[in-house]
């Protein structure tokens, strides 16, 4: 049975300081010869090789292609790239950026405003100035009271007075 593990060195009876030539062993080992390689192997290898190179599309060569560069040139290019990047980064950070104008936050506050609702009441009041107050008669007669319009004169112009509403009804 094959196994990858090797016996520990402690189990080695004595360390081999030199490889001793053992002609008898060599002769015996020489008896074991490997078989010949089949011709199909050569064909397979060649086919794979051709597939690898001759039928490789151009775009694939471009994508997978590589160029060899001497190490000092590569190192110099890398250093140059690093230096350029560093300078660019430094230049970019040296500009003082103006602070952006603070956007005032609009705060909406709801204020309740009392609305006074006015009620306008218009009334026309006729008033007899100077007319004596009618005395209460014990019993109204059957005839309607007679209204004397002798002194009545229509007013030349009418003045309308609009008074504010209130509780006193005048």
């Amino acid at each position: 049975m094959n196994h990858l593990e090797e016996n520990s060195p402690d189990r080695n009876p004595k360390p081999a300081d030199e490889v001793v030539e053992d002609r008898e062993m060599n002769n015996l080992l020489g008896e074991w010869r490997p078989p010949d390689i089949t011709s199909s192997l050569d064909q397979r290898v060649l086919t794979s090789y051709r597939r690898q190179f001759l039928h490789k599309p151009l775009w694939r060569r471009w994508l997978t292609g590589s160029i060899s560069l001497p190490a000092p040139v590569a190192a110099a290019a890398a250093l140059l790239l690093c230096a350029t990047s560093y300078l660019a980064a430094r230049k970019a950070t040296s500009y003082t950026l103006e602070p952006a104008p603070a956007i005032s936050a609009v705060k909406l506050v709801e204020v309740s405003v009392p609305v006074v609702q006015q009620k306008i009441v218009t009334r026309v009041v006729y008033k007899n100035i100077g007319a004596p107050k009618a005395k209460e008669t014990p019993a109204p007669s059957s005839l309607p009271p007679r209204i004397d319009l002798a002194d009545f004169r229509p007013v030349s112009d009418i003045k309308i007075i609009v008074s504010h509403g209130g509780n006193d009804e005048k």
Partner: protein
Amino acid sequence: MTDEKLLENAAKGDETAFVALYQRHRDMVFRFAYRLLQSQETAEEITHDCFLSLIKEPRRFKADRGKASLRTYLCAAARNLAFKRLRWVGAETAIDDFSERLAAAESQGPLRLLLDAEVSEAVRKAVGELPTLQREALILFEYEELSLAEIAEVVGADVGTVKSRLYRARERLRILLAPYFKEGANMNVERCRL
């Protein structure tokens, strides 16, 4: 042309360079994978994947160029793929049927072939019974003739550890293959004669 140049051209789409590179290292990769997993089909798959991954990402090898040769790199790649397979199949390797091999050897006639087939099968079985880490060290050292430093590079261990693994592998093989060493081998032949 060097391996590096061939790989560079192959990675650009030069098929001739790829074929040259493949033929140069194909057998080594296949042999190593086969001896490690003992399955021809899987070893071929690993060989295929190994070369394809090399072409897909040749930079992986280029990155290690200072340390390793392409041979070492391919061995390490094959080893990784083989270990992945071992994990997938729960460390069970496919083993060909011995009786089929014997029958094939027998059909060839001479007793020598039969004996060779038997010894070969015994060695295969004995190597297969080694723990994987010892087995790979033995295969790389004995069959692929890599140096200890190269093996250490492939398996990602230090040279001392590789030596230790090799020593233990040989000790174990000596026990497993005892009947095939001198006296044992003679006894075997005698048994066959009887």
